[in-house]
């Protein structure tokens, strides 16, 4: 190092005004004056903007003066750069570079800061070490008093942050898996796995919220006792209904089938909505618990109380808000980038070229594919321009044909969506009709068969055979026959129940019916997207748009099937409960419909997860084995799979939607989702690393990230609507849950609000009046206009500055050209002078010779 530096100094001294800082370019840098004289165009390399970036050794020293104001490293670095670039007075800078310690009496803190800034400099380690030693040995002022304490505190804080970062990286989940995926598939796919991890943590956060504010208080706090039902005269009071419900569902033993169905003993756990109390912990309304209103009026008797229903509803609101905030925060970075640019695909080419290669790839095969993908992308980008041109020049006939085709295909898609919705509806109807009488005593038979149902997989195999039998019969027969069939089934069920016995077949049929709609939904989700992909080829959209539109259609498919399901629940639940009943026994409404809904979502989540396992390990894995070991075109056609990001994203987002929808009715659903997402990571990792080969489509991390968040946002919005509706409008069941006996769940919040101090209520009410709304509206509009004007002005300014930059660039070119031609002229002049000089000398010499000759 020192040798190199000495050489440099020598160069500097020799040529005074040229500062050859760039070690890296020393061989090719036309740094010397002689070289410049040979090639005048090289004068451009002497521009200050070119000089200072490479001359980094000096940077640290030259920063002393200007970092003083700001402590923040970022600004310091930036300023340093700008000053370094500005400093065109080479001599001064050079003086600053010489080890002139007298002027650098800086305090310890500054030195410490500078040592930490060394690492951002692009020089070799040896130089950095030297700089560090130099800084450490420099004379420095000792800090006194408060400053010393402050500095020590900063140092400690710095260390703590570093330690914390180390701990975090050690704890980082799936670090090695991510590296492996990254090495084989690049950053776009890793973004998906990061998204998966992010969802897992989101679910975990939701669950922790529920656990700490709803579940733990319920378990820990003592539940106040109520009067038993016998003591109350009215048979339809919440207390009696609850006891009725308890008696029906109690006397359960453990059964494996119950675990996957969420019935039986599971129904009695805190897993579902039904078991949560409507009591307010901490006060004992024993003496007047007969009606809800009086129980609330007695609330102020206890000083400290925990209102579980209120906690339940507010936690629901909180975790929806938390989810929304998390999504928006994650999405906003991407959106901000786009909004700032404002020109859509502003830097698409530069992005592709300079950010195209994933430096993390470490596998030859993936590297080849990456090359190929980049090649395709480059060609695609270039061709898209031509395509656009072509699109403008399409003939009218062709356009007409295309429009007709697109129109027809869109109609077809709608029809397919409608058909799948109807299929789900009918299947759900069948299953309900079959299970309706079953519902009341669905638990008793199971205990007989605990021993036979050894494992879920074994029983799933068994359904397969029944499945085929039944689907053939149900699909061929009409409504009528279905009904009869269902009635028969229920009759058999009843009689069997009377006997206290059920055959295994009946048992499995029951289970099959229970899962029928969910299996159908999952199957549709597998089959229909393939059809959509096939159809979209006829529409001749641009490649990017194809991805978008097929994604959109698939989302609609998934959500429409969910919507059908929800609407079915709705019609089941909506019948008004007559005053003297606990629930509508005749219309098939379950006694505790919230728990029923929770169970449905629980089943749906489980089915969804099992299908992922099944498809990944038992369908796609053999396929990939087939493709790997048998070398034929057919095998490759059948077996080879790409890791289609959009499809896998949908899978995850779908289960997340289920989690959001269901967690009000099954508070443990987020916990289950967390666990399942955890395993999902491994399933998807298997699907990615073992089953698929790297995709030939270029997935970019930024683009795919914003796509994920957009889809998640859509499904979040769609998940919120039914939950909010149910909370605000539908009457909770009387027999169970924290809101039994209220008109709607929201009533609990309203009553809590009414109990607040009058002053606070007045404030809230004021927000609702016109006196507040109209001025607020006006002010907001003004703000909106203000920011719009500012951004407009900024845009204009950017344009002006850009033009100015171009002008400056031209000026620079012009001046450089003039300068180099001037130097050329100078050289020629010098040459001429030299020539002239020589000529004269020769002439003189000749003259002298001549005179000498003459003298002779």
């Amino acid at each position: 190092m020192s040798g190199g530096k000495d050489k440099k100094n020598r160069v500097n001294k020799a040529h005074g005004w040229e500062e050859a800082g760039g070690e890296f370019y020393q061989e090719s840098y036309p740094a010397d004056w002689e070289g410049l004289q040979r090639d005048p165009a090289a004068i451009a390399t002497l521009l200050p903007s070119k000089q200072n970036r490479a001359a980094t050794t000096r940077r640290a020293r030259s920063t002393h003066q200007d970092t003083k104001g700001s402590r923040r490293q970022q600004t310091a670095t930036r300023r340093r750069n700008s000053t370094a670039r500005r400093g065109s007075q080479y001599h001064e800078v050079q003086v600053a570079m010489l080890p002139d310690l007298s002027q650098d009496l800086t305090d310890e803190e500054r030195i410490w800061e500078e040592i930490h800034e060394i690492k951002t400099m692009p020089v070799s380690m040896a130089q950095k070490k030297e700089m560090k030693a130099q800084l450490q040995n420099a004379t420095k002022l000792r800090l006194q008093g408060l400053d010393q304490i402050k500095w020590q505190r900063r140092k400690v804080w710095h260390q703590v942050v570093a330690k914390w970062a180390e701990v975090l990286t050690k704890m980082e989940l799936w670090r090695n898996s991510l590296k492996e995926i990254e090495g084989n598939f690049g950053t776009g796919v890793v973004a998906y796995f990061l998204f998966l991890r992010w969802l897992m943590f989101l679910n975990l956060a939701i669950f922790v919220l529920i656990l700490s504010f709803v579940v733990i208080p319920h378990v820990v706090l003592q539940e106040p006792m109520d009067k038993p039902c016998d003591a109350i005269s009215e048979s339809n009071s919440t207390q009696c209904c609850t006891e009725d419900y308890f008696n029906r569902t109690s006397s359960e033993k453990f059964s494996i089938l119950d675990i996957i169905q969420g019935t039986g003993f599971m129904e009695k756990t805190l897993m579902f909505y039904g078991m949560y109390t409507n009591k307010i912990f901490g006060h004992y309304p024993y003496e007047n618990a007969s009606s809800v209103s009086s129980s609330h009026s007695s609330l102020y008797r206890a000083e400290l109380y925990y209102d579980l229903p209120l906690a339940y509803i507010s936690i629901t609101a909180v975790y929806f808000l938390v989810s929304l905030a998390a999504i928006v925060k994650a999405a906003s970075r991407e959106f901000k980038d786009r909004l700032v640019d404002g020109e859509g695909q502003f830097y698409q080419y530069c992005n592709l070229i300079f950010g195209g290669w994933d430096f993390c790839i470490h596998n030859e095969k993936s590297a080849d594919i990456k090359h190929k993908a980049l090649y395709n992308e480059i060609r695609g980008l270039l061709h898209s321009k031509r395509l656009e041109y072509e699109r403008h020049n399409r003939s009218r006939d062709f356009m007409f044909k295309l429009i007709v085709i697109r129109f027809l295909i869109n109609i077809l898609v709608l029809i397919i969506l409608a058909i799948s919705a109807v299929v789900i509806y009918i299947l759900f109807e069948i299953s309900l009709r079959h299970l309706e009488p079953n519902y009341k005593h669905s638990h008793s038979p199971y205990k007989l068969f605990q021993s036979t149902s050894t494992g879920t997989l074994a029983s799933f195999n068994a359904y397969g055979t029944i499945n085929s039998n039944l689907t053939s019969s149900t699909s061929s027969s009409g409504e009528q026959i279905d009904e009869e069939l269902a009635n028969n089934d229920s009759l058999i069920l009843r009689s069997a129940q009377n006997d206290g016995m059920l055959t295994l077949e009946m048992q499995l049929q029951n289970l099959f019916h229970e899962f029928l709609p969910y299996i159908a939904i999952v199957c549709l989700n597998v089959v229909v997207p393939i059809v959509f992909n096939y159809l979209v080829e006829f529409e001749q959209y641009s490649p990017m748009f194809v991805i978008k539109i097929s994604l959109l259609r698939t989302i609609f498919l998934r959500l429409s099937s969910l919507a059908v399901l929800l609407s079915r629940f709705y019609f089941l639940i909506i019948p008004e409960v007559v005053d003297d009943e606990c629930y509508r026994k005749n219309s098939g409404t379950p006694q505790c419909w919230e728990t029923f809904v929770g169970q449905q979502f629980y089943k749906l989540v489980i089915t969804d997860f099992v299908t992922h396992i099944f498809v990944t390990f038992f369908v796609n894995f053999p396929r990939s084995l087939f493709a790997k070991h048998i070398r034929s075109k057919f095998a490759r056609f059948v077996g080879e799979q790409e890791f289609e990001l959009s499809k896998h994203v949908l899978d995850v987002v779908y289960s997340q939607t289920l989690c959001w929808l269901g967690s009000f009715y099954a508070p443990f659903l987020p916990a289950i989702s967390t666990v399942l997402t955890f395993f999902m990571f491994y399933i998807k990792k298997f699907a990615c690393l073992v089953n698929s080969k790297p995709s030939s489509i270029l997935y970019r991390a930024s683009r795919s990230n914003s796509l994920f968040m957009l889809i998640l946002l859509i499904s979040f919005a769609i998940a919120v609507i039914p939950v909010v509706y149910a909370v605000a409008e539908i009457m909770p069941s009387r027999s169970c849950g924290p809101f039994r006996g209220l008109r709607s769940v929201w009533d609990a919040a309203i009553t809590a609000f009414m109990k607040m101090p009058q002053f606070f209520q007045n404030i809230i009410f004021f927000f609702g009046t016109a006196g507040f709304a109209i001025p607020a509206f006006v002010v907001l509009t003004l703000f909106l206009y203000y920011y719009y004007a500012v951004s407009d002005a900024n845009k204009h300014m950017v344009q002006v500055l850009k033009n100015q930059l171009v002008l400056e660039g031209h000026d620079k070119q012009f001046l450089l050209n003039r300068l180099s031609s001037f130097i050329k002229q100078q050289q020629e002049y010098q040459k001429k002078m030299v020539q002239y000089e020589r000529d004269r000398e020769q002439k003189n010499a000749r003259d002298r010779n001549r005179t000498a000759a003459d003298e002779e």
Partner: protein
Amino acid sequence: MGQTKSQFSEEELQDYEDLTFFTKKEILFAHKKFKQLAPEKVGHNKNAKLSMNKILQYPELRVNPFGDRICKVFSSSNDGDCTFEDFLDMMSVFSDACPKAVKAEHAFRIFDFDGDDMLGINDLKQVIERLVGPDNCVSDNDIKQLIQNILAEADLDDDGALSFPEFEHIIDKSSDFNNSFRIRL
């Protein structure tokens, strides 16, 4: 691990920790990786200079189309041969903790093939050719078109080449760069 630990004194480790974006543990881990490239040589001298071919055995660099450029940029002797310190510098720049500006600086050098401190047309052409790989051929016309598009996007002062500030501006705007210009240790 104990063996590697004994190769560094506490002071050296402290130096390295101060001068890179790594913690001491990561530095030792990096040394382990470095040692794997040439076990006996590095075992003998912990800061041994390995030839560029040896360094290019590192998995991420092996398949990287800019592997040799990376070695040259980080090599303190400018010929692509790297000592451990150079290797550590390299890994530090490619780590997650490294700020974008520093990464941009090095990326600029990597892409600046002819070393004239500007990304000129020839540099861009080489970058594109290396990106696309030897098996796929882009026609000269397409490359010309592409370079034109790049310059139209980013060459603010219209001098037919990208200077460092222009490049830094692109990198600042590029949301992908931070993700892609990264090697996990």
